[in-house]
């Protein structure tokens, strides 16, 4: 192949990009502290770090969304000034954001055309854009219908649109911010094939992640960030998973917590033939049967938006079921309102902890009694017993290691990990019979994640039935005794821990029943 600096998309290659001494301060936080980073053409460079380590900040500086307080950016050894995303785009830098930047009510072609001048102003030139989308799709293996609306597409397809959007604008360097978070294992494999192809063709790729095995799978080099500082840059081939974890967290990490053998007891939660509607009025759950036993963690795996939220809400009474029956320790609770189910010791760790898990303008102490504020000793004859509330919150803050200046601190000023500890403390301190834990570790750092998982395992040991709804397959595989896979509101199958492999679960997550392929 002839040596050329033109990419298959027709745009010029970026041979070498360097960020030197980047510092970025936010009020009270030094998000990036003198970070050096570089990436070359043909390379997949992973940027590894925990949440809050400064990965996304560093990349937003490169993409012109943040302005660094210090530091320089060199593109092919020339200093460049990137003041806005438009500057970044003009320099051949594209970014795929963690939360897709797509307008759902517009078509693929319209989304790609956004922000660009049209060749027949003021009218759109969508037929031209569509042709280019098809051409790019053929070159890079990203087939997509340009006339489809975004809301009609799967998450994996939406990601393709994001990549095409960047390529359409001439991206030679692509920043991928946690691109696999929303994909099934099979979609991740397909995605990695595309990434490797792009690298081979001379693109430079930056892969932001906190998933170690993905970093090892896909990257050539890896830079590790911790607390805003760079720990180092390494050849991926020379690093082990243990090394990466140690660099990322700053200490040794256990990957699979020791799972004690616990005798499975009685069925505590029985769900029979539950169906419900989604917010859009379409079927949300279809005839779901599940049982969760004392002393087990039942994992609910699935790609986001396949009925997980509806399931949690129907069990806790926040959403009406259209049919079916729910039993808690043999008692029918199908028609009870949420508060009555709470009183029967059904605990709920909601997915949106800031929105549904607590009242962010209330204090820690107040948030800790949200389930029992109406009962003695917290409330007597309609008056709050402040002494009792204070004693209760002091106890929980110390038992659950909640880091807070005081119990009168407003919930919203705590870190994500401590907020989750408040929710966990409130729910678990009541000695529940059944716990519904929805995405309990999403967005938490390694320390808080370990903490929450240990607490759930303790509950399992004490005879509680734990329903763990998680989109993080690694988490489900690490914790669950049985794994039920949900797809389009249906349970595709229940797999025992011993038989569970990512491939097997992945197929079910994609809606493929065994033997049906």
């Amino acid at each position, binding site marked *: 192949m002839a040596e050329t600096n033109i990419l298959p998309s027709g745009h010029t290659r970026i041979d070498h990009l360097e960020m030197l001494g980047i510092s970025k301060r936010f009020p009270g936080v030094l998000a990036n502290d003198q970070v050096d980073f570089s990436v070359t053409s043909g390379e997949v460079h992973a940027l590894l770090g925990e949440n809050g380590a400064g990965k996304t900040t560093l990349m*937003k500086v490169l*993409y012109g*969304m*943040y302005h660094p307080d210090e530091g320089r950016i060199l593109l092919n050894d020339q200093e460049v000034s990137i003041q*806005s*995303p*438009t500057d970044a*785009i003009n320099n051949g830098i594209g*970014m795929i*954001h963690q*939360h*897709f*930047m*797509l*307008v*759902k*009510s*517009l078509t693929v072609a*319209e*989304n790609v*055309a*956004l*922000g*660009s*001048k*049209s060749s027949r*102003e*003021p*009218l*759109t030139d969508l037929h031209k854009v569509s042709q280019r989308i098809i051409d790019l799709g053929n070159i890079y293996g990203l087939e997509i219908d340009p006339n489809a*609306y975004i*809301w009609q597409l799967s998450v994996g397809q939406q990601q393709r649109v994001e990549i095409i*959007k960047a390529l359409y*604008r001439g991206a030679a360097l692509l920043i991928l911010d946690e691109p696999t978070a929303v994909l099934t294992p099979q979609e991740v494999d397909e995605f990695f094939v595309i990434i490797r192809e792009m690298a081979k063709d001379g693109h430079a790729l930056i892969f932001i992640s906190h998933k170690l095995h993905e970093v090892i799978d896909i990257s050539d080099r890896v830079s590790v960030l911790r607390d805003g500082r760079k720990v180092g840059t390494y050849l991926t081939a020379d690093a082990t998973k243990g090394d990466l974890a140690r660099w990322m967290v700053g200490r040794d990490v256990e990957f699979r917590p020791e799972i004690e053998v616990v005798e499975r007891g009685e069925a505590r939660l029985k769900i029979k033939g539950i169906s419900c509607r989604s917010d*859009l*009025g*379409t079927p949300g759950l279809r005839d779901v049967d599940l049982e969760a036993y004392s002393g087990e963690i039942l994992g609910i795996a699935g790609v986001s938006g396949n009925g997980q939220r509806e399931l949690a809400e129907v069990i806790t009474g926040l959403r009406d079921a259209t049919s079916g029956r729910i039993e808690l320790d043999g008692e029918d609770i199908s028609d009870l309102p949420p508060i009555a189910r709470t009183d029967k010791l059904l605990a709920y760790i909601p997915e949106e902890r800031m929105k549904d898990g607590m009242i962010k303008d209330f204090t820690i102490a107040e948030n800790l009694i949200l389930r029992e504020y109406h009962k003695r000793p917290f409330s007597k004859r309609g008056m709050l017993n402040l002494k009792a509330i204070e004693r209760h919150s002091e106890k929980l803050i110390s038992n659950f290691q909640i880091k807070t200046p005081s119990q009168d601190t407003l919930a919203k000023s705590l870190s994500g990990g401590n907020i989750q500890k408040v929710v966990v403390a409130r729910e678990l301190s009541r000695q529940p019979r059944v716990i519904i834990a929805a995405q309990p570790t999403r967005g938490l750092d390694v320390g808080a994640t370990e903490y929450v998982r240990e607490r759930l395992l303790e509950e399992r040991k004490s005879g509680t039935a734990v329903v763990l709804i998680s989109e993080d397959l690694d988490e489900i595989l690490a914790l669950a005794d049985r794994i039920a896979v949900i797809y389009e509101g249906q349970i595709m199958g229940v797999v025992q821990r011993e038989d569970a492999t990512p491939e097997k679960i992945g197929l079910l997550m994609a809606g493929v029943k065994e033997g049906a392929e």
Partner: protein
Amino acid sequence: MNFEIILHAGIATGSVLLFAAIGEILTERSGILNLGVEGMMLLGAMAGFGTSLATNSAWLGVAVAVLAGGLLSLAHGLVTIHFQADQVVSGLSLTFLGTGLALVLGEGLTGQTPPLLLDYNIPVLQSIPFLGPALFQDHGLLVYAGYLLTPFTWFYIQKTRPGMHLRAVGEKPAAADTLGVNVYGLRYLYVFVGGCLAGLSGALISLSVSPGWYSSQTTSGQGWIAIALVIFAQWNPFRAALGGYLFGMLRRLILDLQGPRLLFGLVNPLYVNSNYSFFLIMTPYILTIIALIFGSRAIAKKRAGSPSALGIPYIRGERGQ
């Protein structure tokens, strides 16, 4: 009661609602809710009437009304876009501000007779049987302009590049921003345009449809009906036109119903006690609620309906945008 007269009057008063509603549709499509329509309309009505009186030119009055509405609306833009304040609170305040300004500055205008906008007939079209006289005779040029504004606005929103940017800014501003679309600039622009059209509809009242300055009775709540109409229309200009003319006709019908002592051979309760007509005045709002109920199912299916980012200030770099 004569249907042709009701239709003719409905078209004229409906045009007032149409301009204001289309302005509000453009503003809301960009993600900004402006509840100050009534205030902008009244200021426009006063400014148009007063300018026409002072300069002897009704069209200059219209121009000043447009500008007055637009400028007042920019105050809302400053508060909600730049300072990211609550759009409902700011919009309500704008109504008070606009109404107050109009009443103070309009002091002494009552009873004056400035030159008004003239009515015209459209050749050929006016001879269409039945519809011709109602739609194409004895209307001001602005009413005819309303016929053209509707398809134009629809085409602009759905088929042009700037229209696509407008939709994107109202649906997902962060996506538009990352592609170099000027979210703040566009939102200011459409807040201004919305205000201009509200001012225009005010002048249309005071200089053409029901000429005169009757302080706050000049607009008598039509700004609120225009906002209801936007929801009724599901942010679609054609439905806004349909609803506008329909609500216009209702207005006339309500007046007509109060006239006769006997209705269908029975004693007319509205004639006996005019307070009953309040129930009739509610009809546009009730229709809006009904349209909302029946519309919501269609919205869920087609993902149409209100712009997703409506009412939410855009703050660059904030999580979850």
